[in-house]
C-alpha cells in the first residue's frame, strides 16, 4: 500500500500505536513515507473531518444538557456524559497544540550508545519492552471495543425515557425519548425512521472514535514509561558484570568469565596503533578517542600504576572503562527521556485529573440513587469503573517508573563494589546519590503520578459516597 518509512528508536517500537492514532483522527502528520503535498492535504482533511464530526456531536450533547437543565436528575446524568467525553476533546486539542513536543519525545531515543559487552542484554530488554507495549495496546483496544459494544447493548434494555419532574404534582413523570446510546439534540426527528438510523450510526461512530482518541494517547504515554522502565532494568542487570570487569583492573581476581569472554569475542586483535586512529570497532562515541592514547585510559586519569596486576591488554582496560561510560551515558539518556515525557504529557494529565475528579464526585452522588439491578445501576457502575480504570492506567505505570528508578540504587549496592577500583567506587557513590531521588512524572507540578494518587482519588470517591448516603 505505502512504502515503508524509515524510522528509528521509539518511533519504530510505537509504530502500530502511531498508525492507530493517525487512523483515529489525531493531528499526527509525521512518520509517513510519502510526504507529497497531495497526500498531506488528504491526511489533514481526514483529521479535520474527524475533529469536526466529533466536536459537532459534542455540541449537540451540550445543547441537550442545556435544554434539560431544570431537571436535577437529567442534569446530573447529562453532565456526567458531557464530562466523560470532554477527555477526548481535550486530548485532541492538546495533541494538536503540542505535537512538536510529542515529536521531540519520540525522537529522544534516536541515537543511543552501544557497547560490545552489553548488546545482548540491551536487545533482550528491548524485546521485553516491545512485547509489553504490544500487549498494552491490544488490551486497551480490546477494552475500548468492549466498552462500545456493551454501551450499545445496554441501550436496548430498560425503558428509553426521560425523567421529568412535574411541577404541579411534584412527582417524576416519564417522557419518551429515542432509544439511542447517548442523549443529544438533533435538528431532525430521531424517534423512528431514517433519522433514528442515522443518529444511531453517528453515535456509534462518535463513541468508538472519541474513546479511541482519548485511550490511544494514554497508551503512547504508558508505552514510553514501559520503555524507560525496561531500560532501567537493563542497566540494573549489567551492573554486576560491569563491577566485575572494573574490579579486574586493580585487584587480582581469579578467572571470571567476563575476562575470557572479553578476549574471545574480539574479532580483530588490533591494539590501537599510535598513528592509526581506526578503532571504531570498539567505540561508538567520539569522545572515546581521547582515551586511546598512552594506554593509561581515561582523559584525566593519571593512575600511578601504569601496569595493572592482571596484565590486561590496553584494549581490555579501555573496554572496562568504556563499559562504565556506557552505563552512565545510558542512564543520563533515560533521565533525559523521562524529563521529556513529563514535559510533554504533564499538562494533559492535569486536565485529565481535573475532569475525572468532578466526574467521580457526580458519580458518587448518582451511585447513592441506585435501587436495584437495572439499567441505571449498570450504566453508573460502568461509568465509575471506566473512569477509575483510566486513572489507574497511568498511575500504575507512573508508579512502576518510580519503583524502578529507585531500585537502581539497590542494584548498585548489591554488586561487589568493594572489590572495585577507586573509579568504580566513586561511580557507585554518585549513582547511588542520584538514584535516591526517584524519577517521577508530575502533572504540571501539581501532583505526582503514582498509585498514591489513585488511592487518594478512590478514597475521596468512597468518602463522598458514604457521606452522601448518610445525608440522605
Amino acid at each position, binding site marked *: 500500500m505505502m512504502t515503508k518509512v524509515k524510522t528509528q528508536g521509539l518511533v519504530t517500537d510505537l509504530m502500530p500505536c502511531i498508525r492507530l492514532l493517525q487512523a483515529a483522527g489525531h493531528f499526527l502528520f509525521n512518520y509517513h513515507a510519502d510526504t507529497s503535498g497531495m497526500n498531506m492535504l488528504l491526511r489533514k482533511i481526514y483529521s479535520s473531518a474527524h475533529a469536526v464530526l466529533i466536536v459537532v456531536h459534542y455540541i449537540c450533547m451540550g445543547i441537550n444538557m442545556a435544554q434539560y437543565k431544570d431537571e436535577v436528575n437529567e442534569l446530573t446524568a447529562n453532565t456526567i456524559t458531557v464530562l466523560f467525553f470532554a477527555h477526548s476533546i481535550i486530548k485532541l486539542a492538546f495533541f494538536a497544540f503540542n505535537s512538536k513536543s510529542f515529536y521531540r519525545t519520540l525522537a529522544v531515543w534516536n541515537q543511543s550508545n552501544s557497547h560490545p559487552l552489553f548488546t545482548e542484554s540491551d536487545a533482550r530488554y528491548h524485546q521485553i519492552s516491545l512485547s509489553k507495549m504490544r500487549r498494552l495496546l491490544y488490551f486497551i483496544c480490546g477494552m475500548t471495543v468492549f466498552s462500545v459494544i456493551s454501551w450499545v447493548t445496554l441501550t436496548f434494555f430498560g425503558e428509553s425515557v426521560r425523567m421529568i419532574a412535574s411541577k404541579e404534582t411534584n412527582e417524576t413523570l416519564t417522557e419518551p425519548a429515542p432509544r439511542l446510546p447517548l442523549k443529544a439534540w438533533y435538528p431532525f426527528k430521531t424517534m423512528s425512521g431514517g433519522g433514528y438510523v442515522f443518529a444511531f450510526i453517528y453515535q456509534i461512530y462518535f463513541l468508538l472514535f472519541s474513546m479511541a482518541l482519548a485511550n490511544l494517547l494514554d497508551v503512547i504515554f504508558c508505552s514510553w514509561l514501559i520503555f524507560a522502565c525496561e531500560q532501567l532494568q537493563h542497566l540494573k542487570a549489567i551492573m554486576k558484570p560491569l563491577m566485575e570487569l572494573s574490579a579486574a583492573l586493580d585487584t587480582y581476581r581469579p578467572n571470571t568469565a567476563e575476562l575470557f569472554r572479553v578476549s574471545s569475542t574480539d574479532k580483530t586483535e588490533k591494539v590501537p596503533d*599510535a*598513528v592509526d*586512529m581506526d578503532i571504531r570497532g570498539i567505540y561508538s562515541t567520539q*569522545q572515546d578517542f*581521547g582515551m586511546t*592514547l*598512552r594506554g593509561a585510559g*581515561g*582523559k*584525566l*586519569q*593519571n593512575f600511578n600504576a601504569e601496569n595493572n596486576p592482571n596484565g590486561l591488554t590496553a584494549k581490555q582496560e579501555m573496554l572496562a572503562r568504556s563499559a*562504565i*561510560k556506557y552505563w*552512565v551515558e545510558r542512564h*543520563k539518556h533515560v*533521565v533525559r527521556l523521562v524529563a521529556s515525557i513529563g514535559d510533554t504529557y504533564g499538562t494533559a494529565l492535569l486536565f485529565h485529573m481535573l475532569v475525572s475528579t468532578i466526574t467521580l464526585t457526580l458519580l458518587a452522588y448518582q451511585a447513592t440513587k441506585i435501587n436495584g439491578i437495572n439499567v441505571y445501576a449498570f450504566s453508573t457502575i460502568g461509568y465509575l469503573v471506566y473512569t477509575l480504570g483510566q486513572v489507574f492506567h497511568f498511575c500504575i505505570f507512573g508508579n512502576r517508573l518510580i519503583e524502578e528508578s529507585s531500585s537502581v540504587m539497590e542494584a548498585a549496592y548489591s554488586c561487589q563494589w568493594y572489590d572495585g577500583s*577507586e*573509579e568504580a*567506587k*566513586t*561511580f557507585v*557513590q*554518585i549513582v547511588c*546519590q*542520584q538514584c*535516591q*531521588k526517584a524519577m517521577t512524572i*508530575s502533572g504540571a*507540578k*501539581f*501532583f505526582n503520578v503514582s498509585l498514591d494518587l489513585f488511592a487518594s482519588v478512590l478514597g475521596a470517591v468512597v468518602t463522598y459516597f458514604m*457521606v452522601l448516603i448518610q*445525608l440522605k
Partner: protein
Amino acid sequence: MEPKTYTTLEAFKPHFNALARGGYLKIMKPTSFKKPYFNAFCRVLVWFFVVLYNLQHLILVIQVRRSTERIVDILFILLTTLNTFGKQLAFNLRVHRIDKIIDVMNGVYFAATNRYHVDIMKENALAMYRILRLYHVAIFTCGILWTIFPLVNRALGENVQFTAYFPFDTAESPTFEIVLAYMSILITLQAYGNVTMDCTIVAFYSQAKTQIKMLRYDLEQLGKIDNIETKFTENIFERSSHIWKALKDEKIKIHSKLVFCVEHYRQIVWFVKEVESIFGEAMTVQFFVMAWVICMTVYKIVGLSIYSAEFVSMGVYLGCMLAQLFIYCYYGTQLKVESESVNTSLYCSNWLSSLPKVRRQMLIMMQYCSKPLTPRTAYVIPMSLETYISVLKSSYSLFTLLNQKH
C-alpha cells in the same frame, strides 16, 4: 559586539518603582524614581491615612459587636487591610535586611556570566513585570467595581452602610459621595500596596529559582570537553599532547568552577532563608486571614442566588484571594522543583572524566543539594501547589456540606 551587562536587579525595578510611587517604601537602589522629598511626603501621608482607616473600622466593629452579620461584613475589609498593614510594617521595619539582600543580588555569585544566564534572567524579569501589571489592572478594576456598587445600590433606594466609623451622618447627598470617594481611594491604595508587595516577595522567590537555573547550567558545563580549544595538527602525538595539556589546565579550572558553584548554592540557600524570615510573620497573618476569608465567603455564598450583586462581589473578592494565594504557591513549587533538579544537573556533567578525588567533592555537593529548598509559611505550611489544592478541596467540601444542610 559587547553585550551590555545585564544586572540581576532589572527584574525588581518595576516593583520598587511602584512601591516608591505609592509611598509604601523608601527609594531603594534598583528604582529609577528619583524624587526623595516627594517620596518622603507620600510615605508620611500613606502611613497616616492607613492607620486612620484601620482605626475607623476597628471602632465600628466595637460599636456593632452585638450584630454578627455586621461584624462579618466589617471584618472582611478590616482583616485584609490589617494584612496589608502587616506587610507594610515588615517592609519598612526590616528595610536594612532588604538592602542586604539587594547587595547580595548585586554580588559576584548572582551575576550573569554568559548568554544563557542573561536569557533566563530576561525571561524572569518579563514574567515578573507581566504579573505585576496584571495584578495592577485587576486591582483598579476591582476598585472601580467597589465604587460603583454602593452608588448603584443607593440609586436603587437601598440603605448603604459604610464599614467604617464616621462621627457624622453619611446618608445625605454630598457627604455620601465624599465619604464614598475617601473609602474607595483608600481601599484601592491599600489594595495596590498589597498586590505590589506580594509581587515583590514573589519576585524574590522567582529570582532564587532563576539563580538555581543558572547554577544548573554551570554544573552541566563542568568538565565538558567541547569547551577545550586545541590546535589542529596533523601529527597525532602533537595533537594528543595538546589535548593532554589542555585537560590538565581544565582539571584546575574544574576545581575552581566547582568551588564557585558550591558557594553560589550556599548563597542561594541563605537568600531564600533570609527572605522567608523577613516576611515570615506577614505571611503567617496573610495565610490565616485568607483561610478565614475563604470560609466566610463560602458560608455567605451558600445562601445567595447566583444573580445578585452581592454574590458577584463576593465571588470577585474570593477570586482575588485565591489568585493571591496561587502565585505564592506556584512560585514556591517552581523553586522546589528547580532545587530538586540540581543533583540531576550535576549528574549530567562530565564527572566520568574526572579523577575520584574530584568526584568525591562533587559527591559532597550532591549530598547537600539532595535536600530541596521549600519555602514555608509559619514554619509548618509549605508554599506549594499541594497546599493550594488542599485549600481548594477543603473549601469545596465545606461548601458542599453547608449546601446540603441548607
